[in-house]
């Protein structure tokens, strides 16, 4: 899967979980510091990514991912 496709789908999940617009989200954005994700939303994001891509990720490592760009790269390892 192309990186751009992964990124678009990641942004879609983030926009849904954090109730924001995909166009307002940048690759360098930190989930907590820039997008305001709390601990519950972080778990929802991991679950959302797994469902979107039909994958099962290492949850501890997934929760350590801090930025949108890193999340795209992390998911790319599984798809």
């Amino acid at each position: 899967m192309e990186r751009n496709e992964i990124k678009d789908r990641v942004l879609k999940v983030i926009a849904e979980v954090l109730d924001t617009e995909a166009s307002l989200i940048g690759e360098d954005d930190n989930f907590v510091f820039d997008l305001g994700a709390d601990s519950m939303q972080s778990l929802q994001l991991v679950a959302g990514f797994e469902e979107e891509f039909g994958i099962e990720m290492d949850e501890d490592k997934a929760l350590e991912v801090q930025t949108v760009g890193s999340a795209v790269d992390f998911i790319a390892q599984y798809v």
Partner: protein
Amino acid sequence: MPNRSALHQENLEKIFNPSSVAVIGANTKKGTVPFDILYSILSGEFNGLILPVSPGKKHIAGIKAFKYVTDIDDPIDLGVIVFPSTVANLALEQCGQKGVKSVIIISAGFREVGEKGAEREKQLLEIAGKYGISFIGPNCLGLINTDPAVRLNASFARQMPAAGNIGFLSQSGALCTAVLDYAHAKGIGFSKFVSFGNKADISEIDLLYYLMRDEKTRVILLYLEEVTDGRALMQAARDIREQSGKPVLAIKSGRTQEGASAAASHTGSLAGSDDICEAAFEQAGIIRCEHIEEMFNIATAFAYAPIPESNRVAIITNAGGPGVLTTDAAVRQGLQLARFSEETTKALKKALPNTANIQNPVDVIGDATADRYEAAMEAAFRDENVDGVFVILTPQSMTDIDAIALQVVEAAKKFNKPVYTSFMGETDVASGIRILQQNNIPHYILPESMAKAFSTTCHFGQLLRRKAGKTDGATPASGRLKATAILQHAAEEGFNYLQEYEAVELLKEYGLPAPEGALATSEEEAARLVQTAGFPVVMKIQSRDVMHKVDVGGVVLNIQTEAEARAAYQAIMSSVSAKLPEARIQGVYVARQIPEGEEVILGLKRDPAFGPVILFGLGGIFVEIYKDVSLRVAPLTREEAMDMVRKIKAYPLLAGARGRRPRDVGSIVDAILRLSQLAMAHPEIRELDINPLIVRDEGEGCFAADVKILIK
């Protein structure tokens, strides 16, 4: 103080007295720390601007929220970071960019969780250093300033405490909430209340100096779980006492966590970390408390009443039994029952019924009204022989409890002497106690607590009046150089202790008395040396491979002739060679045997928090059984050295008990001071034992009969 400490003092001003506070990482979820902190500030009626920073939120609790702290146009005095630890560094970086110099980091997940957290804490310090930021925390509950001009509750404590003059600093956040609840029930107010958590940047030392200057604070309370810089803590307590007259009360937890590691010296074994902490606190005038209740019992005495001039108390009671109990408690705490002047006795006789006891303790009898209490208090307060008054009340059917409480309040206002109260019971006396508490009259459930509080304030008063002594002068440079050379030589040879002849030589460089002696490397030399030393002599094996000389037959005492000396030399050599064939032997140390005297121990140990610690006590082979020792942190003043000697239980033996001639106590004090100099000059000495130090009669000095020096 170093520059960073000076910066902290400047930045603490805005931490405690901000005009605007940004809560960075706030959210809208009730019951979470980020929300509760914001809510505490709001409900505490903060007298300034509140600015929530919360990405993704336009407003919180009706207040406009900002995405970043850098988006705020107004100047920000204080930043309170409640973001998770993983992004606290980003928040602090932005505080730096915005010019916020004063920060509290509430977030947990730093040093306390391990290596990754420690790394995050290090990052915070780097950012703080780069921007000139000072921060409290991380991993803390926050702080409270009750000053009506500020009213800042930047914490997740459930309620804002009442305003008062007690400053409270705590390393534990959870304990803070319990203390606030306890104090609320007792009607105790605070000036400042701080949880400092991991103390990564601003430490308890910085906070102590801030409270020293804080006009609203009269008493400082400290709860510590670890002492990081014991010497700075001691200095802070001394500075606070000398410059502001404020007492520092401390609870240091972890008394029972004494390490069980085997010590190589008696001093190492006798001076445990909590013993050292206890001694250091006492030396610095820090009042160590056992528990929260005791701490507040004493704190309220300092906070509400004047410090007594001396320890003479008058007891006024409406029942004989409680009067006796209070007398017992007072005497146990080292207080004296005041002897009333003739004038006082006359006044009491005139005011009280014939059945009353007009001697101290004064019994105003069970049917006493407020008038009788008033007359008794008036007479006692006016007496020059009375330094403080204890008012005891038991609730009898004719006792007007509230009226008597109000009378105590009036008397306390009228006279500049302390009055402490104990209204005994619970339900019946509750309203009277409330009157006392509302009017800042120290009240105690138990006479024992009352007497302890009075005794403590009295002792602190003595410290305030005592002029600070000076530590004894430095060692002559030549002595220091020679001693360093001896220590270096042993270290270069790869050994972690000195041989006795080296140790004795080192002691002598510091003027510590040891008998004349020298190293003999042959029987002939030993025979010659005994003539010079003078009989009787003692001979000891000198080998880096022999730590315990007696165990290998390496010591012969009481040698009276040259022939005995030759035989002793041979005996030592053959015994050591037989028991330790591989031992490298330097020779035999020959020294004059010290005549009899009292055996004491002098020692030195290095503590990670307090540095060099001096030990003195009853010596000899039973030193670890009697454990009759005193400890002090070096350097020492002459008064402190004298206190060490007087403090041991066996002191009367040295002072000349039961008709014995007094020993040379002055020479012990000199020896302690010289050991203190040696301790300060040679950090490479890890532990040192002089055991026994034999103390001769007055004027005849003391001598180190055996010495062990362990080096790093």
